[in-house]
């Protein structure tokens, strides 16, 4: 420690050091639910000077808190911070940590822990959260000395946000929060075993260029890595330069605008027919920031089997994990695109290939059959897409509504679809919307949810009302767990196995009354069930600058199509009934 630092700094409590470290990392919003082992930190948060921009949001459940932190992080690109107490507070964070790990979301989760001398003694609200969260965090820490806090918090933010982003958990025993020291603030992170930033070598770039020059039917398969890597602009330039068409994963949606003539939308199990056609017929697959998830590939051996595969990802372990790449490149994707945009990639004419894809798209677009009376979720999404012109951040729960949102909302900007893709965690949508609105206050933020998913975190209506977070919730209410129901219809002779979530004693009613629940929380709401109400109800909702809930009664008979059943191939695609 430099003598000067000693002179100028006074001793602080661990809790105050923690908060000061967060301030130094530029944290502006914390989602924290207090308890015995974390209240010291909450006390310290009340001592933050009013000159500091630090807002503490009190979610009504720790899972809501960490999902909100994820929504904040995904929408803004900054690190999301969640704070919880020991034991149940910490275990309630687990689903959010697992989600952030799967979808590479930069999160720092801070948990209080029982005092060091009680660890291992089965103390009240003691849980080995470092042990529990080990496989679902990028890294985690148990802070044993108050002197280590500044370094550990700094490392945690660095780890969460660099390389392939992910969640980092810092567990702080109460006695560490209470003990004092003169903090020594590190100016930079020094970790000899962590080198997150990797750039492609010249030779690798040349291999990619050569593959592009030799291709007749190339396709770009862009995923979350292109968004995490902030490569949207570079990808756009690359497409303009080469004329290569684009398909995206659900987490890639928005990285390339869906109104562009070279955009062929989402691929995968519920992706567009033409997107899957494109990948199946391509002679070159440019896989950028993707991980060949089973919901994308179906049967791996058959996936993109006619083409050469270029796979670029910042995470070396993704290369060859699922699908062997002909040209494997471990690199920051933005760097690769920047370099390729400077290189000579030849002057191919792909117009024949694009025409072929356009033809398929015209023949087999995303479609649904409207009977003119019922409200179909697809119709609501089309309307919403049109009314907002893509200038909205959409969050979702998990299930049918999630896939319809991915299909029928036309995403034009990166970071405008926030969804739990890898983990598929129901209840993600509403709290994620709260976080997104705090990260991007000027944006319209709309949670497209299902009745099942919304029920899982509806306590966060209180957070929206009390904290005045003007998010909108649109519930596609079909009284069922729709996606499981769809599988029952297709593979289990429509035998309903606990997928009906209405009131069996009064099946004509719509249960529960989300509008009444919202009202109880102080949030305005409305239920609609006729198609002619949709447009006006959406206008009303969009015009409001306060939390709002729109309960849309939709038929349960609707299926998400197209569909490539699990483990099957493009040839097995179900396009229509």
């Amino acid at each position, binding site marked *: 420690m430099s003598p000067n630092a000693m002179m100028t700094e006074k001793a602080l409590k661990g809790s105050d050091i923690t908060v000061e470290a967060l301030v130094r990392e530029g944290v502006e919003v914390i989602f924290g639910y207090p308890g015995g082992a974390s209240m010291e930190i909450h006390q310290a948060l009340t001592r933050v000077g009013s000159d500091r921009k630090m807002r503490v949001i009190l979610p009504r459940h720790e899972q809501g808190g960490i999902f909100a932190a994820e929504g904040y992080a995904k929408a803004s690109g900054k690190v999301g911070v969640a704070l919880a107490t020991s034991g149940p507070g910490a275990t309630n964070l687990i689903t959010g940590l697992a989600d952030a790990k799967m979808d590479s979301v930069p999160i720092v989760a801070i948990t209080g822990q029982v005092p060091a001398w009680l660890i291992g003694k089965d103390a009240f609200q003691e849980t080995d959260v470092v042990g529990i969260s*080990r*496989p679902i965090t990028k890294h985690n820490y148990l802070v044993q000395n108050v002197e280590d806090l500044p370094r550990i918090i700094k490392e945690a933010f660095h*780890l969460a946000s660099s390389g392939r982003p992910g969640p980092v958990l810092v567990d702080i025993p109460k006695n560490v929060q209470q003990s004092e020291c003169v903090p020594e603030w590190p100016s930079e992170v020094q970790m*000899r*075993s962590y080198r997150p930033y990797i750039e492609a070598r010249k030779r690798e770039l040349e291999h990619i260029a050569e593959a592009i020059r030799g291709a007749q039917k190339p396709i770009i398969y862009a995923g979350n890595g292109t968004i995490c890597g902030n490569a949207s602009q570079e990808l756009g330039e690359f497409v303009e330069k080469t004329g290569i068409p684009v398909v995206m994963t659900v987490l890639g949606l928005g990285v390339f605008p869906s109104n562009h003539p070279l955009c062929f939308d989402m691929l995968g199990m519920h992706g567009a027919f033409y997107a899957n056609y494109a990948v199946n017929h391509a002679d070159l697959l440019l896989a950028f920031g993707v991980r060949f998830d089973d919901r994308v590939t179906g049967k791996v051996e058959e996936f993109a089997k006619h083409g050469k595969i270029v796979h670029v990802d910042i995470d*070396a*372990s993704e290369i060859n994990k699922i699908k062997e790449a002909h040209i494997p490149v471990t690199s920051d994707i933005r760097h690769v695109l920047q370099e390729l945009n400077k290189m000579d990639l030849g002057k191919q004419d792909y117009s024949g290939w694009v025409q072929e894809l356009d033809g398929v798209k015209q023949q087999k677009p995303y479609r649904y059959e409207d009977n003119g009376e019922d409200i179909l979720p697809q119709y609501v999404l089309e309307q919403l897409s049109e009314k907002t012109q893509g200038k909205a951040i959409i969050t979702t729960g998990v299930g049918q509504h999630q896939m319809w949102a991915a299909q029928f909302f036309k995403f034009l900007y990166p970071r405008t679809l926030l969804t739990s893709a890898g983990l598929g965690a129901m209840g993600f949508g509403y709290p994620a919307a709260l976080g997104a609105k705090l990260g991007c206050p000027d944006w319209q933020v709309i949670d497209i949810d299902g009745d099942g998913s919304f029920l899982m975190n509806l306590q966060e209506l209180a957070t929206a009302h009390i904290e005045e977070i003007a998010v909108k919730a649109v519930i596609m209410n079909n009284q069922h767990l729709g996606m499981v129901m769809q599988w029952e219809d297709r593979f289990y002779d429509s035998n309903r196995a606990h997928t009906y979530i209405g009131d069996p004693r009064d099946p004509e009613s719509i249960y529960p009354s989300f509008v009444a629940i919202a009202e109880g929380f102080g949030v305005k709401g409305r239920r609609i069930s006729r198609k002619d109400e949709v447009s006006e109800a959406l206008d009303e909702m969009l015009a409001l600058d306060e939390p709002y809930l729109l309960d849309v009664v939709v038929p349960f008979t609707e299926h998400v199509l197209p569909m490539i059943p699990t483990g099957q191939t493009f040839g097995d695609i179900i396009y229509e009934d």
Partner: protein
Amino acid sequence: MGQVISLLVENRTGVLSRVVGLFSQRGYNIESLNVAPALDSDASRITLTTRTDLKGTEQVVKQLNKLVDVIKVTPFDSGTQLIREMALVRVQVSEENRAELLALSEVFRARVIDISPRNCIFELTGQSGKIDAFLENVRAYGIREIHRTGELTLGRGKAGKQKGAFGGQKPK
């Protein structure tokens, strides 16, 4: 034959459970495991053997490299590495066969480190195959206890020059 992987890790609480946990999470099995301080006192050396194919090795090495506390991962191949294992073996003896057993142990260069009227403890070092062969030969006398270290490795040649497959060294 198992794949031997040598890891240099930060000597910190929880590192071993991160490494071991990764194997079970990703569906790999650890056959032997050895942990000891490394030359650099802030680091530890973990040597482990796992049964997997080439693709499995590539994947597990990459996953190990992702662990923040792992400094270096080296998957060894039999051509360039020295592999040794040590074993302590307690064998039952009697007045009649003691001389015969001691003669046998000479062949394997096993050292006698304890003798009691009914037992004899041998210490031997070598490649795992040699230890297996010794055990096979003394089995008839009655093996009472065995303690093996698992395999330890170092690359041949100059220190720091050994290079693993799949970029065992973390990218700079």
